[in-house]
């Protein structure tokens, strides 16, 4: 029953978020600030992880190609497929659930604990729209991060593969071009768009509806990370089933 209450409250929250809109002049500032914190602020960690995981995927693939009959361009092919189909859209989203999600939950939760949300409500402001809508809009730029992640992942694989002596530059380049299906990119971005909405709204829900003090803000951030990850994984399964089978 409790989970149904949460689901109901989550959808009510979405309904109120798209209700009475905050003045555009104020909303614009909030969106720009959130783009800076949520998108620009995540570029460093996403780039770092993508580059090195791309490298590791290439090395692991190379080390498992024991049969001399298997072509070396498989390293590039496997790296591209892993990065584009799963690593960049799904696993970077799980990482972002920790980084961006916990920021959203704790910032909104702290506002709840310190009565800042009550202060906004007393002023007659639609707090759902004021607090959550800018985060949804700024995270709509999230596919750009995934784009960078894809590029750096494949590039990391190239560096590890070529400079680690596992394949030649030509083999790797041939591999990443082999059997390329453009729809895979579309599929990845469709997934990412859904995940960006989840990344903005589930942590916001846990922050907005939290009760208690500082300790509960920490707990809410943890719970929010768990639920955001669970929903992303389930949604990933569902979208893959719908689009790729």
């Amino acid at each position, binding site marked *: 029953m409790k989970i149904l209450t949460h689901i109901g409250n989550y959808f009510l929250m979405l309904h109120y978020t798209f209700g*009475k809109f905050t003045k555009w002049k104020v909303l614009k500032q909030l969106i720009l*600030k959130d783009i800076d914190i949520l998108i620009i602020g995540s570029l460093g960690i996403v780039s770092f992880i993508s580059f090195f995981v791309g490298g590791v995927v290439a090395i692991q693939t190379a080390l498992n190609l024991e049969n001399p009959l298997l072509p070396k361009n498989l390293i590039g092919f496997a790296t591209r497929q892993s990065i584009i189909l799963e690593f960049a859209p799904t696993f970077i989203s799980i990482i972002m659930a920790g980084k961006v999600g916990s920021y959203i939950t704790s910032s909104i939760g*702290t506002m709840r604990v310190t009565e*800042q949300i*009550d202060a906004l409500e*007393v002023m*007659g402001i639609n707090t759902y729209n004021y607090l959550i809508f800018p985060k949804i809009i700024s995270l709509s730029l999230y596919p750009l991060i995934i784009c960078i992640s894809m590029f750096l992942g494949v590039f990391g694989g190239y560096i590890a593969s070529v400079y680690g002596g596992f394949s030649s530059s030509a083999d790797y380049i041939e591999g990443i071009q082999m059997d390329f299906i453009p729809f895979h990119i579309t599929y990845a971005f469709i997934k990412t768009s859904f995940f960006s909405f989840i990344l903005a709204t589930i942590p916001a829900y846990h922050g907005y509806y939290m009760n208690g003090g500082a300790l509960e803000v920490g707990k809410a951030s943890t719970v929010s990370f768990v639920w955001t990850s669970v929903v992303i994984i389930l949604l990933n399964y569902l979208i893959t089933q719908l689009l790729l089978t």
Partner: protein
Amino acid sequence: MISVENITKSFDNIEILKDISTQFEKGKTNLIIGQSGSGKTVFLKCLLGLFTIDSGNIRFENKMLKQMSIKERIILRQEMGMVFQGSALFDSMSVEENIMFPMQMFTKKSDSEIRDRANIAINRVNLVDANSKFPDEISGGMKKRVAIARAIIMNPKYLFCDEPNSGLDPKTAILIDNLIQEITEEYNITTVINTHDMNSVMEIGEKIIFLKNGKKAWEGSKEDIFHTDNKSVSDFVYSSDLFKKVREVYLKK
């Protein structure tokens, strides 16, 4: 004027407010006093419309809160100012931005006009050299002043304060109390203050409501409180030796 008629409020089947009726008059500082857990904050939040009452009525100038449309409620909320217990200043904004915020949200005035109005409010609450500071860079007393300035910038009809001098030293607490009373008279506002500070009661209690276990146990002015034979209110107000002596001296006079 705010009229409260037989309001009740429960949480999880536990009745927090029990059949409270009273009136808060215009141009006066109305105090709600009572022990911790007596229902003061819930009562204040019901007045603000942050909690929905289970039964009874709250009227703002004869307009029933329950029957107001969403649009009317939004207009009413723009006529309210609130000073929260912890000041509730927005961490991400400077002092000046905090004070300008309600005007930026609800008026079409230019930034320079809003800044001028904010500076009037800042001067009114005697804040010096704090415009560009952030809430975590100023003292508790200054935070309360900023909260008051933010509450009065829209020239509200109603001012609500939840324990405005909690956590402040006695001198600053009296300054804040006096500031609220001056503003109430100057702007002819209906002010409702939630407090358990007896200094406030003696200083600015033009009308006092005493809550006990969610019920209104006593109502009167700060002069009445010296003569009351209500045991609950006497035990609460004169719980310290100092106030007992103050009462004795007052009654001898």
